């Protein structure tokens, strides 16, 4: 009975948190929901039996069912890793944890006005003003790619036509470029 009440309360709280806009609250909702699922597993194993479940260590009728506990152990690990990933999604990808659409999120609109497009950089893809650098490798001759575009053979007209194109002279851009490279090396 106490497990049933606990599962009900956890689920109700989880559903309430799912309905919130903030990503962190949704993540907390999932934490509660996975607790509820784990408790259902314990209930399935019948909590009245609490003996040590080794063969020969006691009466068979008193030994606990080890299977649900193994299930719960597995489920906890999986739920924990996904929770961590969701927390990462909540903090790294946008300027706030609002789950509203891109078009209507005021924070993103403000970020766009500022020209701040650093929102999307993670996992080997780093965007700085739209440039996505994928795992800087080497060119066909085996030399590493140059740090900055050399400028030779490039038509400057097209370069400027991209409103988000980085201006190499800006110290900010250089700093973030250096940061990117450092990140790429430590990864």
């Amino acid at each position: 009975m106490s497990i049933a009440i606990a599962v009900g309360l956890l689920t109700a709280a989880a559903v309430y948190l799912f309905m919130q806009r903030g990503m962190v609250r949704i993540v907390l909702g999932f934490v509660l929901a996975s607790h509820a699922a784990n408790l259902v597993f314990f209930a399935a194993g019948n909590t009245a039996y609490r003996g040590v479940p080794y063969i020969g260590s006691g009466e068979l009728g008193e030994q606990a069912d080890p299977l649900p506990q193994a299930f719960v152990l597995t489920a906890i690990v999986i739920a924990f890793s996904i929770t961590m990933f969701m927390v990462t999604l909540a903090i790294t990808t946008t300027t706030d944890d609002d789950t509203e659409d891109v078009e209507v999120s005021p924070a993103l609109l403000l970020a766009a006005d500022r020209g701040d497009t650093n929102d999307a950089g993670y996992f080997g893809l780093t965007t700085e003003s739209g440039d996505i650098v994928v795992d800087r490798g080497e060119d066909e001759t085996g030399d590493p790619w140059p740090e900055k575009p050399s400028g030779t053979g490039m038509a400057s007209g097209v370069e400027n036509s991209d409103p988000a194109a980085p201006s190499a002279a800006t110290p900010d851009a250089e700093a973030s470029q250096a940061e990117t490279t450092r990140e790429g090396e430590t990864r």
Partner: protein
Amino acid sequence: MTEILPPLLPLAVGVPLLLAALGVALRKKRLARHIISLGTLAALFVFAVLLVIATGDGTVLVHQVGLWDYGVSIPFVVDALSALVLMIMSVLAIASVLFAMATHEARARFFHPFVLVLMAGVSGALMTGDIFNLFVFIEVMLLPSYGLLAMMGAKLGAHGARIYVSVNLLASTLLLVGIALVYATAGTVNLAELHGAGKEDPAVALAGGVVLSAIAIKAAVVPVHGWLTRTYAMTSPAVTALFSGIHTKVAIYVIYRIYSLLFDGDERFLWVALVITSATMLIGVLGAVGEKTTRSILVFHMISQIGYILIGVGLFTLLGLTAAIFYLLHHMIVKASLFLSTGAIEETYGTGEIDKLGGMLKREPLIAVTFMVAALSLAGLPPFSGFVAKFAIIQATLAESHYWVAAVAVVVSVFTLLSMLKIWTGVFMGSEPDDLQERALTYQQRMHGKRYLRVQAQAETPTLTIGPPTATTSAVLAGKQAVKVPFKLIFPAILLAAITLFFGLGAELLMGWSETAAENLLNPMDYVRAVSGA
């Protein structure tokens, strides 16, 4: 061969996992990662072909992992259905990886390892004979998918990834509760031991219903389909193609497997499946009408096609199941081909919006032909595999006197054709927009940076592709030369389109395999006997 293969079954999970770890370790060796990834996927394909041959006569291959006795062990079981699905999925993975290598997405350090872990999860989910292990393998399959989606969707913002992770975690939690309830009511999670439990005991049937509902969310069945359209269009075409062929299709496989074993094809619940699948067909195809980009139209069609595939569950006759399995295999190939051919345009010209494209028939005749083949196959016109698939499905519904389901299927086909024509007229016919070239160049620059722009100075018509810059880059950047889709981007779509043509003309072959798989589903006693060793 039936003696050698079973002990090798766990390797289909273990080897990709191990090589994924190796791929992560080889951080500076991009070429090695490419080779490892493609090599593993090719080996998985060969293994799946061997399994298809070995299970072709209805044999069920079983390996009790760790050689524990039946009842204690967690078995790996392969019958014709799992072998066929694994075979097609490894083909799709190869095609998607080739596409991702062409777009340079595969250069990212974690791309190949993620794909390999994904395929390890797929092999496990298709082979496992234990419902809790099924949950674990589905999670193994999903975790790298979260990474892929977020990584490749970075340019489009995190919202797709957030919805995807949230919905899938919710479905997984529900699945976990369902499995707990199955264990509580039936006392086991071994699929062979669960055989028929849902038919005899209403409590187990209810628990199985929770499991099926959770899987239905993952399969994007109406009314729980909304997440699919909001996430699959939010990542790169290569990842969309990979996911389209794998995630929802593994869920469909699980629905078939559980309904065959746990419910033993119980006839009392069939009408529920028929109502849901009809709604899925209709709502999916109508949703596509309002969409503006090629990919979102295709994603809505995916939902509609999932309805077709699940008709087989609602009929649960030999003809119905055969047709549905044929449809499943055909659909995985055709859908991925469509995603890749429109994706090639999207990756080159920087947009998938129908209004902003046009005249591609003249500019990219090869893609146009590839798209046409796959689109006609999807709509169900001869001589492609789609015709055979749809014809068989409709025949099976008529044989069971479900005339309204057959009517819905026919009407939805017409709408599918109309939608494909919408993409065709919008993207391939008509006149080229003036800013097509400019947008393509801007996009290439944004995506790949100036370092990766290369001009192939071939004779008179140099074309611009992705790669290191050369002296003539400026000529193309100044807009004097034409942007063109490189062949390596078109090749994966052509490969899959060729397969649909092959299975259309040689439908006998695939139909025969599907029939074996359907017989296995219809007589789960073979499965139970093989696992229990009785």
